[in-house]
């Protein structure tokens, strides 16, 4: 892989508008039963402006942003061999339906270990007023090609 990418930040090319139905769909798909993720009245009673996203929802927008980077031929990642190595989320506040978010990707490290290429990337998610909402860290491992 191209080591020149280490430390490089790829700014968002568009925004991600968080839909109420998308949050509901995601909550149902993972089996999250908390009403604050599906019921607007319950969410408002709990002090939120609208339904809130489950804690791993940010993966939807961070992977969308990251996928454009990891498919860049100049980076040289063999996507066919990629598996998800680890994942972390840090929330400044929950993601709420109606949020218009931008996702900036930073390539934190590129390593090679036992024939595997290991890419670590951070996604910084900010809202329309520029406030930090969430950061996610993803490690992708391109396994050694079979001999």
């Amino acid at each position: 892989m191209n080591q020149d990418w280490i430390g490089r930040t790829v700014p968002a090319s568009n925004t991600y508008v968080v839909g109420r139905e998308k949050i509901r769909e995601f909550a149902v798909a993972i089996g999250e039963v908390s009403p604050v993720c599906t019921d607007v009245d319950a969410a408002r009673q709990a002090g939120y402006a609208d339904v809130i996203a489950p804690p791993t929802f940010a993966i939807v927008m961070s992977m969308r942003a990251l996928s454009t980077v990891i498919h860049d031929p100049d980076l040289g990642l063999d996507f066919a061999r990629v598996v998800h190595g680890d994942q972390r989320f840090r929330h400044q506040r929950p993601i709420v339906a109606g949020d218009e978010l931008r996702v900036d990707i930073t390539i934190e490290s590129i390593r090679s270990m036992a024939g595997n290429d290991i890419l670590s990337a951070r996604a910084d998610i900010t809202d329309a007023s520029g406030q930090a909402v969430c950061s996610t860290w993803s490690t992708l491992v391109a396994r050694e090609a079979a001999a």
Partner: protein
Amino acid sequence: MSPTWSSLTVGDQLPERQFPIQRADLIKYAGASLDFNLIHWNERVALEVGLPNVVAHGMLTMAKAVQVVTEWTGDPGCIIEYGCRFTRPVVVPDNSAGALLFVTGSVTALNDDGTVQVTLTATCDGATVLGKAQVLVRLPRQ
């Protein structure tokens, strides 16, 4: 009653949970997350790349495991930080049972800033599928 920071002791166990994962769940998660990687729904491709069968999205396993915490607190919005490693794939056979994910959680730190660290274990057929699964939660003091 939701837990409070002052009511907890390091070592406290959260209610454990079992999560069945069937093929249909993988299709639903693929649609909701937009992760259409073929190894999560196409048996032919999964076998071709050397997997024993179709495997669950690591992110689906991660999303289910943290429900041990969100059910305990009652509010998914109190999760400040959550991370894990994907140590082993969850193989989901094409039968009515599918796979069974077993998740436990315990309080591993009570921090002075009012946050609580919970460490999760997630196993499938007795094998650990998530490593270093740690959740940082903000709870009311009292």
